[in-house]
């Protein structure tokens, strides 16, 4: 019997008991739809976190000064200038796995251009800061080496600041005031939009570190070369933990911190924090997937159950088909085709419902949903596998019937 004939016979058999066939596929429909919705939600959440991770950078360390005691109260991180340019240079020189190092300072200021003004954050940076934070300059030349060394009054504007001050006007070459100090705009940053925590990443201005130290920090008695933060990037994410250890050891040595004493700096590995969250999400996805999978198994058992009933009911038909020349193989194929057809039709309807369901959850639920072709293909594969797995035993049972016994059944 060729495949087309097998399918035709299976369709004929299923139509004979269409209500039962429909109810049986309902199990698969629900199972597949659940798989699609659950996996979509799981992947959506995962994608959200991935976005967060890539926004933060998975191969960077943030070192801030501070900690330590001042008058009995433990200072907040960054509250004391315990880090310096020298620390940054030492890291660069002594830890080869480190690709980028940038010391930086930051603070708040008001930016004024003509009659427009805007309150924002300034960042005083070293050259690598752009690479570590994945900023690109989309207009203007940016800082040249001389700007860094001479504490030039050059500024690069974040997109939000540029928009608020200049609107449609060209900002490059214009003079803005940061507080009372006039600066020349030498570049604008390409917009990054909202960050993973919902903040506006484009609301900042960037100046060379030395400029910030002299013109903006407002601190009068800074230790020489003091910075608030050192950020570093490694080339390979798997080196991160090792580099963190090296950095801590190096800084303890440079800061002459004795064994048992507290660090006067903090090294933050954001990737670690995110990894924990990723793991939680993954567990949730797995749990959702398992629930969906269980409903699919229940659907499959429904198929097996009905197919077994069907074999028993049609034992005489099987006997007759065997008598007129059907081989056991033909019988097995016929019943397998019926089970497959139930699960495949159920699967298709389930996919349609699942897609609709996922879209509804995405629109009206508060959960992020990532629906992609892979999920749908996976679901289709599952439905076929369900039919094959749960249809095999009944089909085998049918094919092993003794034709004489089968014909004798009333």
């Amino acid at each position, binding site marked *: 019997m060729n495949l087309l004939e097998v399918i035709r016979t299976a369709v004929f058999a299923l139509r004979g008991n269409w209500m039962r066939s429909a109810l049986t596929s309902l199990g698969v429909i629900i199972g597949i739809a659940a798989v699609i919705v659950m996996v979509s939600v799981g992947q959506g959440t995962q994608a959200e976190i991935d976005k967060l991770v890539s926004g933060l950078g998975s191969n960077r360390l943030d070192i801030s000064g501070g900690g330590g005691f001042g008058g009995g109260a433990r200072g907040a991180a960054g509250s004391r200038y315990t880090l310096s340019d020298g620390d940054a240079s030492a890291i660069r020189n002594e830890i080869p796995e480190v690709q980028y190092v940038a010391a930086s300072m930051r603070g708040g200021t008001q930016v004024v251009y003509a009659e427009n003004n805007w309150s924002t954050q300034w960042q005083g940076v070293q050259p690598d800061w752009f690479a570590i934070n994945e900023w690109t300059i989309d207009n203007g030349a940016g800082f040249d080496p001389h700007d860094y060394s001479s504490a030039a009054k050059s500024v690069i504007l974040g997109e939000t600041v540029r928009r608020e001050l200049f609107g449609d006007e060209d900002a490059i070459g214009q003079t803005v005031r940061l507080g009372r100090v006039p600066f020349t705009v030498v570049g604008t940053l390409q917009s990054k939009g909202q960050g993973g925590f919902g903040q506006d990443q484009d609301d900042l201005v960037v100046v060379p570190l030395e400029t910030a130290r002299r013109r903006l920090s407002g601190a009068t008695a800074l230790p020489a070369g003091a910075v608030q933060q050192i950020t570093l990037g490694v080339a390979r994410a798997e080196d991160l933990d090792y580099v963190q250890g090296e950095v801590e050891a190096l800084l303890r040595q440079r800061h002459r911190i004795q064994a048992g004493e507290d660090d006067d700096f903090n090294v933050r590995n954001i990737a670690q924090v995110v990894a924990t969250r990723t793991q939680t999400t993954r567990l949730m996805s797995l749990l959702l997937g398992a629930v969906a999978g269980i409903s699919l198994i229940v659907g499959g058992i429904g198929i097996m159950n009905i197919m077994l009933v069907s074999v028993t009911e049609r034992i005489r038909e099987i006997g007759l088909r*065997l008598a*007129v020349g*059907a*081989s056991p193989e033909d019988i097995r194929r016929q019943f397998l085709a019926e089970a497959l057809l139930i699960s495949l039709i159920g699967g298709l309807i389930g996919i349609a419902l699942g897609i609709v369901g996922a879209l509804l959850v995405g629109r009206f639920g508060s959960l992020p949903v990532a629906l992609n072709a892979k999920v749908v293909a996976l679901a289709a594969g599952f439905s076929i596998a369900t039919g094959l797995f749960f249809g095999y035993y009944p089909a085998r049972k049918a094919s092993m019937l003794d034709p004489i016994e089968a*014909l004798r059944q009333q």
Partner: protein
Amino acid sequence: MSAIAGAVIQAHALGKVYAAGSEAEVVALRGVDLSIARGEFVAIMGPSGSGKSTLMNLLGGLDTPTSGSYHCDGVDVASLDPQALARLRLDKIGFVFQGFNLLPRMDALENVAMPMAYAGVHRHERQQRARDALAAVGLADRGHHRPSELSGGQQQRVAIARALINRPPIVLADEPTGALDSKTGEEILSLFKQLRDDGHTVVIITHDAGVAAHCDRAWVMHDGDLHPAGATE
């Protein structure tokens, strides 16, 4: 008798033991010798439990013997696996049953055409041949009737058309008139005679001596042994 091509059914010392080797073994056939020529119309009689159904199952390739040999149209049946037995039934044997065994959800044409699907006959040819076969048994205008819409005699005609559809050399009929009134039974028997005249070998299993009287030859099965009719009674 037209034994042109020799014996189409050739059984020698055919034996069948159920549950062989166990304590409760049942001997259904005790070394049956049987030779039926091509184009013969024969009857095998016997009371129920005599082993005639077992013999028919063996002759029809539904079962394999535990001893002896059976050649069906030249094929040694004892050596066949289930797959090959199915092929034998498909090519060599047409079954007609007492209870017709038509599939209730199919109309007469679909019932007749069904075995051809297993023989790999093309769909269009199937429909044509099924129509021809129904016409040959006098049911040209009943093709789209379901079995439940046909009389017993008509149903048995459909079953005979189905048995012949793959053009097997042998037709095995198990009590083909058992469920029919005597007039309809006569009609069915004359249909079998017509088959014989067309060159088919027809074997009827029956307990009815009246049916056997129509046949060229008859045997009686008794307790697993086969004797020519008249020899034991």
